[in-house]
């Protein structure tokens, strides 16, 4: 039942406002894709175009090579989980799950079997006859997922489905969701603005901003090798500082000299992204390759200590492991060590 999805040159304008510009994307059979970006980046619009609730201004959607751009949403055979979950409040849990089966003309007995099967899969075998209003947040979540999967969808779409849950429950649901998706082997597209969620779930991460795809790839790859300063800044905690490239190709930033970075030469200004966890705080004794900074703010989060340290005009956000860092206090002078090999360099 699994399918691959190809998005070709999809653009969407709302009046004169351009919401999506020339999106290309390949979703492999059975993979889990997360569309991640700040609010207003166009990720939800893209999902709604895939679902068929919005019509692309230009471009095509290919499902297993077949153009489905003009197929109305109710004939696409996708399963969708909505942000509000959109469980039908006037139906019981079983009626909700069976609704799509009923529409497909499946007989009552098979409907019942399928509902039972799905309730077992979501580990809630006893709630079939309960009204939706009587369910807890996590139970609703699972029922919404079961309802979408009941019809054996060609494509499983989720629009920020976990955003209403509290942190602990959300983490459990993420794991469950991932396991369910593997089990059903269904090609899945999930929209989220939560980077931890995206990193946790995705086989393929698609970072969007202002209606364009900034970067697409495996989560670890996107994290370690961001394509531009936006991605570096958006994913995780990064400090983006200005740097210079000399005629010889040597890069200078924060007084650090780095050689052999493949960058345009000739006095051009560049941007350097340094992840907060890649800055080491050391005793201030002015050793080799350490920079001087002043601690402005410290908070101890348990496993990590986060601090803001001023270096010249830049304020760097630093995350250190609690066990490995010297004790910090505001106003203190410290030394910082930054390994240029762990930094990303972008031309401005």
């Amino acid at each position, binding site marked *: 039942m699994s399918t691959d999805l190809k998005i070709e040159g999809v653009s969407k304008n709302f009046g004169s406002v351009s919401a999506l510009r020339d999106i290309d994307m390949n979703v492999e059979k059975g993979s889990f894709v997360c569309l991640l970006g700040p609010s207003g980046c166009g990720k939800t619009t893209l999902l709604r175009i895939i*679902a068929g*609730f919005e019509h692309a201004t230009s471009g095509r959607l290919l499902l297993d090579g077949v153009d489905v751009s003009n197929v*109305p*949403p*109710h*004939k*696409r*055979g*996708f*399963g*969708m989980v*909505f*942000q*509000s979950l*959109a*469980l*039908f*409040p*006037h139906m019981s849990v079983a009626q909700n799950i069976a*609704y*799509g089966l009923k*529409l*497909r003309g499946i007989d009552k007995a098979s409907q019942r079997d399928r509902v039972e099967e799905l309730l077992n899969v979501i580990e809630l075998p006893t709630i079939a006859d309960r009204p939706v209003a009587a369910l807890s947040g996590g139970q609703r979540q699972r029922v919404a997922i079961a*309802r*979408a999967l009941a*019809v054996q969808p060609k494509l499983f*779409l989720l629009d920020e489905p976990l955003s209403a849950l509290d942190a602990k429950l959300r983490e459990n649901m993420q794991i469950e969701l991932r396991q369910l998706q593997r089990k059903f082997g269904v090609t899945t597209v999930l929209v989220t603005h939560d980077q931890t969620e995206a990193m946790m779930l995705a086989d393929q991460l698609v970072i969007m901003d202002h209606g364009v795809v900034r970067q697409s790839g495996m989560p670890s790859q996107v994290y370690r090798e961001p394509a531009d300063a936006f991605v570096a800044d958006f994913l995780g905690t990064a400090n983006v500082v200005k740097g210079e490239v000399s005629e010889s190709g040597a890069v200078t930033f924060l007084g650090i000299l780095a050689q052999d970075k493949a960058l345009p030469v000739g006095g051009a200004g560049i941007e350097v992204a340094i992840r907060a966890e890649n800055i080491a705080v050391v005793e201030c004794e002015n050793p080799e390759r350490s920079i001087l900074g002043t601690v402005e703010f410290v908070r101890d989060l348990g496993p990590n200590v986060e601090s803001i340290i001023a270096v010249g005009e830049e304020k760097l956000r630093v995350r250190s492991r609690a066990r490995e860092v010297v004790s910090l206090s505001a106003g203190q002078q410290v030394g910082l060590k930054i390994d240029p090999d762990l930094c990303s360099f972008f031309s401005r």
Partner: protein
Amino acid sequence: MFSSLFSTRGGSYSFVIFFLTTLGLLISALPVIVVTLMSFSAAETAAFPPAEYSFRWYEALWAQLSSDESSSAHSLGDAMFTSVLVAALVMLIATFVCVPLAYALVRGGGRVRAGMELLFTLPLVFPLVILGIAFLLIAESLALDLGIWRLVIPHVALVLPFVLRNCMSAMNGIDIEIEEAAISLGASWPRAFLDVVVPLMKPGILAGLIFALIISFNEFTITFFMYTIDVSTLPIWMYSRTVSSLDPAVLSLSVGIILVDVVMILIIDKIIAGRASLF
């Protein structure tokens, strides 16, 4: 919820609020109370309060209703039947047109919505006398035998604002994602509308139905201009019986109408309890 909109602590303030509230409620209810008491009077005259109480006027009403010759032009039974028929038709038509309109306005939005809402509020603020005269003029100049539709058509216009308001407030509470969920599961739009939207609108639809029913059933002014010998309603029958003096039998009929109205209001209140639309 707003327990301190008026405080129970303060002396003069609370006193004034309670005094005015009591006075206002008393004035509101006074005519109904008086009519109800009078209908149980044992006397021939309309002296109030009655010296003795009896059911004689209810018996008189019953006699009138059961012995009524159906050929009589001004029979009570005919008027009652016409009233109920008109109210039922008005209720069905108004609801039938308002449910899709409420959907279109809530989902459509924008400038059109504001304009249409305004248009469908107009019958509420338009002087009824003038409407009555205008409808009469049109009916006369058309020279058509409209039958019962003489009353149904103007009544529908009159109840549209109430029905639409109730339908819209129910529609406002329906998240578009619910509809899209049905569509994503394979429902065509009409199917999703019937399976999901209409059931969820049910409280608003029912409240609108009942509003239409009682408003049409109690309408006097427009009907006063539009009625004919063949098509006449209960309020007109009552008016014709009391134009010179008060017939206590009419009062017992009034109590019946009051009871019907109270029951209808309680049903509406029950249906839309917890939602703000009634108030």
